[in-house]
């Protein structure tokens, strides 16, 4: 194997793939990148066995072949290289030579046969979606997934595809985020995807690109002309989120997102750093905040709001609220309630977007 590549192209390819290479691994080859020649250049691939990323970059290939190269060392070298074409060649299974200007490196790699093969994902009947739509769904929902390991299903994000819409749902059992985007010509499918893979998808594909989504036994593949991401799926069934979204909340509040956020942040200073509990008292025209933490202190604040319904005192984890507000796309948000122990919803108010966005938050018990 022998090829010449520009320093910039090499850095670009490495930047795309290296983030999935695990820092610690019991399987040594996973610390390496697979570099193979293709018709137009080279393909660099990396994996941690849950997620695999592969990207193709243009290069001048002199001799076809493939080898694995230590990922960290190659990246560090690429970063320090002078501005000159980079010439990489492999002798035998393991020896790599890299030359750039007058600099010359010899590295030890591993045979390409040791590199795990990519999951079998079929792209024949691939679904075609816009990368931008996928990115919007991911950035508005993935934050709500659980990081706690007791219920693996909640560690994933549910991705539902219907004929006319795409939907993502994530929850940790305390709060939930759901977004829907209308699409055309979809097909029915449901997958539960680890947020880590979604993060790579969001990072790697430019918003304007069209993606092909291929399905495997237990994997999903996302493919653009140059780059592909493969991910393991979490096996379902996902909890029936639709049943827990309240339909009969009879109290409504419209709040200024920025003002609500800053009041919450102020109150959070004296909220318990474990539970972040805060008391909200909704009255017509006014929202009162109160925090009282034993051993720490108390705080109060007020915010003019529009509110319809009987007065309501309700407790929340302020961090959950703040996180949701961060992703609300409008200047005002609508909250709905029924009772202090029932689910509360948050939605963008006055959003002129075909998409629909809803967050759900379960309250914290208040001490009386």
């Amino acid at each position: 194997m022998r090829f010449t590549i520009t320093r910039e192209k090499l850095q670009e390819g490495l930047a795309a793939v290296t983030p999935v290479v695990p820092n610690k691994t019991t399987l040594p080859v996973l610390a390496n990148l697979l570099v193979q020649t293709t018709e137009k250049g080279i393909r660099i691939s990396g994996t941690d066995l849950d997620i695999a990323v592969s990207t193709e970059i243009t290069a001048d290939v002199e001799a076809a072949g493939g080898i694995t190269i230590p990922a960290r060392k190659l990246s560090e070298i690429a970063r320090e290289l002078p501005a000159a074409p980079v010439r990489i060649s492999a002798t035998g299974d393991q020896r790599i030579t890299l030359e750039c200007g007058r600099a010359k490196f010899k590295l030890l790699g591993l045979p390409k046969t040791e590199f795990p093969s990519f999951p079998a994902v079929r792209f024949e009947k691939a679904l075609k979606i816009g990368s931008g739509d996928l990115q919007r769904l991911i950035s508005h929902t993935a934050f709500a997934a659980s990081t706690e390991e007791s219920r693996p299903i909640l560690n994933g994000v549910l991705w539902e595809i219907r004929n006319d819409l795409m939907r993502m749902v994530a929850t940790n059992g305390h709060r939930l985020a759901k977004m829907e985007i209308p699409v055309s010509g979809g097909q029915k499918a449901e997958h539960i995807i680890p947020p880590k893979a979604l993060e790579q998808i969001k990072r790697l594909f430019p918003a304007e690109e069209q993606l092909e989504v291929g399905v495997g036994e237990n994997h999903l593949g996302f493919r653009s002309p140059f780059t592909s991401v493969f991910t393991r799926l979490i096996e379902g069934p996902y909890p029936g989120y639709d049943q827990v979204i309240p339909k009969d909340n009879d109290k409504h509040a419209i709040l200024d997102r920025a003002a609500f956020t800053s009041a919450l942040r102020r109150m959070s200073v004296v909220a318990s750093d474990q539970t972040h509990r805060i008391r909200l008292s909704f009255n017509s025209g006014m929202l009162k905040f109160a925090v009282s933490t034993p051993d720490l202190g108390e705080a109060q604040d007020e915010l003019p709001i529009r509110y319809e319904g009987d007065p309501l005192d309700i407790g929340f984890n302020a961090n959950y609220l703040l996180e949701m507000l961060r992703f609300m796309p409008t200047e005002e948000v609508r909250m709905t309630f029924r009772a202090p122990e029932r689910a509360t919803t948050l939605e963008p108010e006055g959003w002129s977007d075909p998409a629909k966005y809803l967050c759900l938050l379960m309250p914290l018990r208040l001490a009386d």
Partner: protein
Amino acid sequence: MSPVGSTARARVAILPADVADRIAAGEVVERPASVVKELVENALDAGAMAIDVEIRDGGRALIRVSDDGLGMPEEDARLAIARHATSKIRDAEDLVGVGSFGFRGEALPAIGSVSHLRIETATEDGAGVAVAVSGGTLVGVTPIARRRGTTVSVEALFYNTPARQKFLRGARSEWRAIVELMGTLALVRRDVRFRLVHDGKEQWQLPAAASLRARLGPLWGGEVAERLVAVDDVQGVIHVAGLIERPTDVGSTSRQVLVLVNGRAVRDVGIVRAAEAAYKSTIPAGTRPSLVLEVTLPGREVDVNVHPAKAEVRFVDRWTVERAVERAVRRALGTEEAIASVGAMPRPEMPQALFGTPLPVEVLRQAVPSAPAPLFEPEASSPDAAEDGGRPPAPTAAPAADPDLIVPPLIQVHRTYIAFERGDALVLIDQHSAHERVLYERFMGALERGDAPAQRLLFPLTLHLSPAEAEAFEGHRALFAGLGFDAEAFGGNSVLVHAVPNPHPRFDAERCLRETLAALTGDRLPSTIARHERLAATVACKAAVKAGDLLAPEEMRALFLALARTTLPAHDVHGRATILQLTWDELDRRFGRT
């Protein structure tokens, strides 16, 4: 008619004085140790600075106590053997606020009536007098030459009271009682040199000691004494000082307990219990700590004239005294001295606070609102809860110490311990034990206030329980609710959980609840601790991060700060250590750098 039965019926007669003395002797002099006690206390009252005690055959053959005290002139020596002759009290008024040891004036005549007693005494070096008494009868007064002081020899104790003699135990057992007694006296009067000899062999020689710890060394063993934690606390008029065992050491040696009230050794169950209450949750149930506590309070607050052997006292306000003792011990346990350490540990002159700044124990405790805790069932009410009820409304302001607390760089080792460097030592925190302690105190606080935050669940948990677990759940239902578990029966042995506490991001509510119920059903021991404490401890144990959990730097930091805010950071709820320190001295020693 001759009086019928004149020989059969004994006439009532006043007992001869010597017989009365012999009977009275039984009250004060029941075994050799009590003779030693009377004689040594007399010597101390005479202002002795050096006391030699010689014993033969467990005190049955000979008890000899020599001192360098004031001594007595001849007439006093004669009087001393008369009943109720005492130089210490003139009338009943003096009984209030007795400051000296022996005051009943019974000792010498009583002893003299049941032995061969010889008193040699001199008020100054040179001319003295020897008074000999045998079975209560004066047998001779002779002038002698001796140094200032008094020597009392008691030979053949109980030779004329065979019944009493028969009840004496073996020489070894009597000797043990004497050693124990002398140990106590030596701790009370640390300024006096003591020497104890048995059958010609020296048991110990104690030079005058500057501190309790110095005196304890030869008595309990130097290493044991070094590892004790100093107590020193004043509350109102009550001063509590002493040395107590570290929770990690409790149970490793035989238990020794000594309570002094105004310098007098007393048996006081209440004080010991108060001290032990302070150890609550730091040592395993059923084990009890060794301790020496000196309680000092004004004479009017205490009545020592309850028992002839003077081992019991009566406090005017016992509750306040016990509270002061508990607080003092608890404070001592909160200092870094109380932390388990590897090898020997140098003691700082002033007890340092654990994490660099003084721990505002009282501030924290007072910050707990004094609202009654309606969740308690009557049997579950703890002394703590009762105290809280009596407290004036507490400020809710934050203790000022927190912002000053500097968190040192922390690293996790073995996925089990958090290591950091502090001043004079390498310190290791057991992450599980530490978290357990943090959660325990938080849960106890929540139970007392009844305001545990309960996070409602989007998807209620359904738990299928065994009949025993269901019963345990039912039995603790109100307490579970107090901790934030909101659940209802769901037919059969199932429960539906609607809300759970959320003490930390890794918390697995379902597993915690299951394991807690399993632990509650497995535990059939009649528990000495209240049910709410046991539940809080169990849930804390199950909810805490485990050994093997990888902690992020900010998690370690949060745990460090939370632990620093607890009242007993160095001890977990099972009596194990949460913190271990390896001092530089110890490291240097192990690397041969010394």
